C-alpha cells in the first residue's frame, strides 16, 4: 500500500495566463479514501493527472509529487503502470480491446505477466466485481455502467496500490453511478487500496470519503473530514457550498450546529430536532399554454418481432413549458423523443404535430459541429434555411445571446468545455426557431453551476413560447426547472402532472430534500423551501420559548 503527496505544486499550461494549480500541498495517506471536488475547470483533472508521469500534461511546473515519499519521476514507467491505477471519465473510450476478458488481461499483458498469473488475476477480479456472467461478451454490447465497471476491474487486475479516478461516474445514470462508487468503496475497505476520487455529484461520494479536498481556481481551499471541509467552505462563504448534498446545505443554512448530516437519514434526524412548520409551499396551477404536439395512444417497437417499447402512450406538449420525463434505464425515454421528433414512427396511434417544428439536441453535441468557429457554425445553420441576410444576422445574434455564446463566437467548437459545446449546439438549433426542443440527458457530466445556468437558459426560452421536453435521470434538475413531469414505465406515462405535485407524490423518484422533509413538509421539493420552512420554525420556536412574563 502506498501514500501519495503533492508538495507546493504549481502548474501553468503553455500559453495560459493563469496557473491551473497554485501551490497545492496535499498528502493522501495510505489506505485513505480522498474525495477531490470543485467546480468544472478548477484544476481537479490537472491535479490528478500529475499522479502518473505518462498522463502528466506539458507546461511549467514547480513543486513535487511523491509516491511513498520518493519523487514520482524516480519510479520507472513499469512501476508506475503497475502501482497507480487510473480510471478516466469516458467509459467507452477507455476500452481498448473487443472482448471483456481481453480487456481485463490487457494491462497484465503489457507488464509481461505469464499466462498462469494473468489467468488467476483476471478470474479473481471478474469474481470480485461480479462480471463473470458477461466475461465472454463483446465490450461493445455492454451498458455504460458495465463498461465503467470493466475499466475499474481491468485496472485492478494489475494490483495497483493507489487508485485514481477522474469523475468516473460523470457519464453514468444515478443507479449505475451508485453501484460503481460502492465497488470503489469495497476496494478501499476490503483490499486497503488508497483511493483518490474526483466527483461533481457529491450525494453518494461525500458520505464514503474519509477526507474531502476542495479546489477553487487551482487552490486548495478546504481539506479535512467531510464535516471539516463543509465547515471550511461555509466559513469562506464559498459558492461551491451550493454543490454540496441537500442535507449538508440544510445543516449549513441552519447554523451548522452539531454533526454534519451526510445522507437523507441524518438529515431527517436534524429536521426532527428543528421540527419545521407544516406550512407547505403553495402549488399555483400554471396557466397551460396551447397544445403544440400531441401523442395519442402511441405504440412502438423497433422491430416486428421485438417487444413493444411504447404501449399506448399519451402525451401533450404545450407552448412555453418544460416537460420532464423521468424513468429507469431502458424504459424507452429516448424512444419517446425519437417519436416526438418524427425520427421513428409509431405503428399504432396518432402523432399530431400540426405546424409545430421540432428540434432535437444530440446527446453528444460534438456530432452537430463541423466548422472551425462557433460563428461559422451558426452562419451555416442560418444558410441552410435560405434566409435574407439581415434576418440571418438577427437570428445568429439572437441565438448567440440567448445561449451566452457572444464571448465564444471565435472559438473552435471542439475546444469548448462540455457545457459550452452543448450551448453552442443548442444555439445552432435555435436558429431554426423551433417550437419544441427535445433534450436527451442534458445535464449528464455537468456540475452544479452549469446545471443552474442551463436551467435558467431553458426557462428564458420557455418565456418566449418555446416548449422544452427533456428526459433525464437528474431529478434535482427536473424538480427545479420543469413545469410538468411524468414517470415513464411499462411504455406509458404515469402520474403526468405539475412538477411539484408529481415529485411530492413520489417516494423514490423525488429530490433528496423532499425525501428528508417528507414527514413535515410533504409538498416541499427544493432544498431552499425546506430551509425557509426550518428558519421560520426556528424563529417561531424562539418566540414561543421566551414567553413574556
Amino acid at each position: 500500500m502506498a501514500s501519495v503527496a503533492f508538495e507546493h505544486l504549481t502548474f501553468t499550461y503553455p500559453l495560459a495566463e493563469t496557473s491551473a494549480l497554485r501551490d497545492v500541498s496535499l498528502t493522501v495517506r495510505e489506505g485513505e479514501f480522498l474525495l477531490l471536488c470543485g467546480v468544472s475547470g478548477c484544476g481537479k483533472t490537472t491535479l490528478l493527472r500529475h499522479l502518473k508521469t505518462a498522463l502528466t500534461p506539458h507546461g511549467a511546473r514547480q513543486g513535487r509529487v511523491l509516491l511513498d515519499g520518493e519523487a514520482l519521476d524516480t519510479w520507472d514507467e513499469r512501476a508506475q503502470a503497475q502501482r497507480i491505477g487510473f480510471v478516466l471519465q469516458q467509459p467507452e473510450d477507455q476500452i481498448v480491446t473487443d472482448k471483456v476478458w481481453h480487456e481485463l488481461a490487457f494491462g497484465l499483458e503489457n507488464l509481461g505477466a505469464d499466462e498462469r498469473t494473468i489467468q488467476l488475476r483476471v478470474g479473481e477480479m471478474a469474481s470480485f466485481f461480479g462480471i463473470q456472467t458477461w466475461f465472454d461478451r463483446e465490450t461493445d454490447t455492454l451498458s455504460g455502467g458495465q463498461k465503467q465497471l470493466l475499466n475499474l476491474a481491468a485496472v485492478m487486475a494489475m494490483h495497483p496500490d493507489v487508485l485514481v479516478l477522474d469523475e468516473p461516474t460523470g457519464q453514468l445514470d444515478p443507479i449505475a453511478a451508485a453501484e460503481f462508487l460502492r465497488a470503489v468503496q469495497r476496494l478501499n475497505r476490503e483490499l486497503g487500496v488508497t483511493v483518490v476520487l474526483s466527483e461533481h455529484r457529491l450525494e453518494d461520494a461525500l458520505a464514503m470519503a474519509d477526507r474531502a479536498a476542495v479546489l477553487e481556481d487551482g487552490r486548495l481551499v478546504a481539506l479535512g473530514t467531510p464535516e471539516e471541509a463543509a465547515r471550511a467552505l461555509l466559513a469562506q462563504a464559498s459558492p461551491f457550498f451550493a454543490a454540496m448534498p441537500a442535507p449538508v446545505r440544510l445543516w449549513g443554512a441552519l447554523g451548522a450546529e452539531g454533526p454534519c448530516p451526510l445522507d437523507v437519514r441524518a438529515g431527517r434526524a436534524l429536521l426532527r430536532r428543528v421540527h419545521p412548520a407544516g406550512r407547505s409551499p403553495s402549488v399555483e396551477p400554471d396557466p397551460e399554454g396551447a397544445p403544440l404536439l400531441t401523442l395519442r395512444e402511441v405504440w412502438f417497437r423497433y422491430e416486428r418481432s421485438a417487444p413493444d417499447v411504447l404501449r399506448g402512450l399519451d402525451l401533450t406538449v404545450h407552448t412555453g413549458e418544460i416537460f420532464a420525463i423521468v424513468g429507469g434505464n431502458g424504459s424507452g425515454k429516448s424512444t419517446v423523443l425519437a417519436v416526438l421528433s418524427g425520427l421513428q414512427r409509431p405503428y399504432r396511434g396518432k402523432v399530431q404535430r400540426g405546424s409545430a417544428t421540432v428540434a432535437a439536441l444530440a446527446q453528444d453535441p460534438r456530432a452537430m459541429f463541423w466548422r472551425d468557429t462557433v460563428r461559422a457554425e451558426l452562419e451555416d445553420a442560418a444558410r441552410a434555411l435560405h434566409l435574407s441576410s439581415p434576418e440571418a444576422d438577427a437570428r445568429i445574434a439572437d441565438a448567440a445571446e440567448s445561449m451566452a455564446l457572444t464571448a465564444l463566437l471565435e472559438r473552435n467548437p471542439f475546444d469548448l468545455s462540455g457545457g459550452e459545446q452543448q450551448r453552442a449546439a443548442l444555439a445552432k438549433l435555435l436558429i431554426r426557431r423551433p417550437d419544441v426542443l427535445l433534450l436527451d440527458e442534458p445535464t449528464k457530466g455537468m456540475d452544479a453551476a452549469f446545471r443552474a445556468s442551463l436551467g435558467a437558459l431553458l426557462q428564458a426560452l420557455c418565456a418566449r413560447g418555446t416548449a422544452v421536453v427533456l428526459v433525464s435521470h437528474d431529478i434535482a434538475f427536473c424538480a427545479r426547472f420543469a413545469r410538468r413531469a411524468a414517470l415513464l414505465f411499462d411504455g406509458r406515462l404515469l402520474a403526468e402532472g405539475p412538477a411539484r405535485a408529481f415529485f411530492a407524490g413520489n417516494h423514490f423518484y423525488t429530490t433528496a430534500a423532499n425525501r428528508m422533509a417528507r414527514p413535515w413538509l410533504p409538498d416541499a421539493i427544493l432544498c431552499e423551501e425546506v430551509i425557509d420552512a426550518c428558519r421560520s420554525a426556528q424563529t417561531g420556536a424562539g418566540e414561543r420559548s421566551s414567553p413574556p412574563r
Partner: protein
Amino acid sequence: MYKTPPRNDAFCALHSALSFAFYVVVLAVTMLVLHPAYLAISLCSAAAYLAALDTPRGLLRRLRWVLPLMVITVFFNAMFSHRGMTVLFYLRNGNAVTLESIVFGLLASVMLAATVLWFASLHIVLTSEKLMAVTGRLAPALSLLLSMALRFVPRISRQIKRTAQAQRALYPPAGLSDRLRFGVRVLSVTVSVALENAVVTADSMRSRGYGLPGRTAFRRERWGARERGFAALFVPLAAVVLAGLLAGRAAANFYPSLDFAAPDALGAASRAAFTLLCNLPLLLNRKEALTWRRLRSNI
C-alpha cells in the same frame, strides 16, 4: 458481426491451432486438387458439418445461391471452352461443346461450392477470439491491432449513424449534390470526434503500461488431453492424404481427353484418410453425443 459459436459443438471448443490446421489442410486439398473423388468427399463433408453446426435450414439457405452458381459455372465453361476430343454437339456459331469441358466445369463448380461451404463453417468455428489466438502466436502486435480494429468497427459505424442523425436535424439534405455534401460532412465530423476519442484511448493504454518491453499475449485456451487425442488422429491422416497427393494419386487431366488417376492401394488409403479427416469434427461431436447418452442412462 461474429456469431457466437454453438457452445455444444465439440470441435469449436478445441484449441485454435487445431481448428486453424484443420481448415488449412481441408481448404488446401479442396482448392488445389481437381480430382472428382476428393472433391466429392470434400463437398459432402462440408455440407454435412455445416448442417450440424448451423442447421439444415442454414445449409439450404446457402445452397439456394450456391447451386445456381454451380450451374452458371458449368454452363459458361461449356460455352466458352471448346477444347477436348469428345464433341457432344455443335453450337449454332459452329463451336463445339465437348464432354471434357463440361466435366471440367462441373468439377470446378464442385470445388467452388465446397470452398464456400467450408468457409461458411469456418466463419462460425474460427471466432475473432480464435483468430486472435492464432495471430497472437505468430505476431503479438498484429493480434492486438486486430482486437482493436474489431472494437473500432462497430463503434465508428454507430458514431456515423449518430452524427448523421444530428446533422440531419440541422441540414435536411435535398437533392443528389446536397446528399453527397451531407455524406462528406458526416464523415468529416465523425473523424474529428473519433480522433478526439482516440486521445482518451491512448491515455488509457499508456496508463496501463502499453509500450513497455516484453509484452505477452494472453490466450484463453489450453492444450489438453482432447487436443492431444485429436492431433494424434489428425496428423497421421493428413500425412496419408498428402502422401497420396504427392505420389500423383489425385492427378487429373481433362484435355485432350479425361484421364483420372486410377485408385490403387495408396490412392484408396489417401481417399479414405481424406474422408475421415474431413469428418473429424462430426465424429468428435458424435462421440460426445454418445458419451452424454451413456452418462444419462447411468443416472
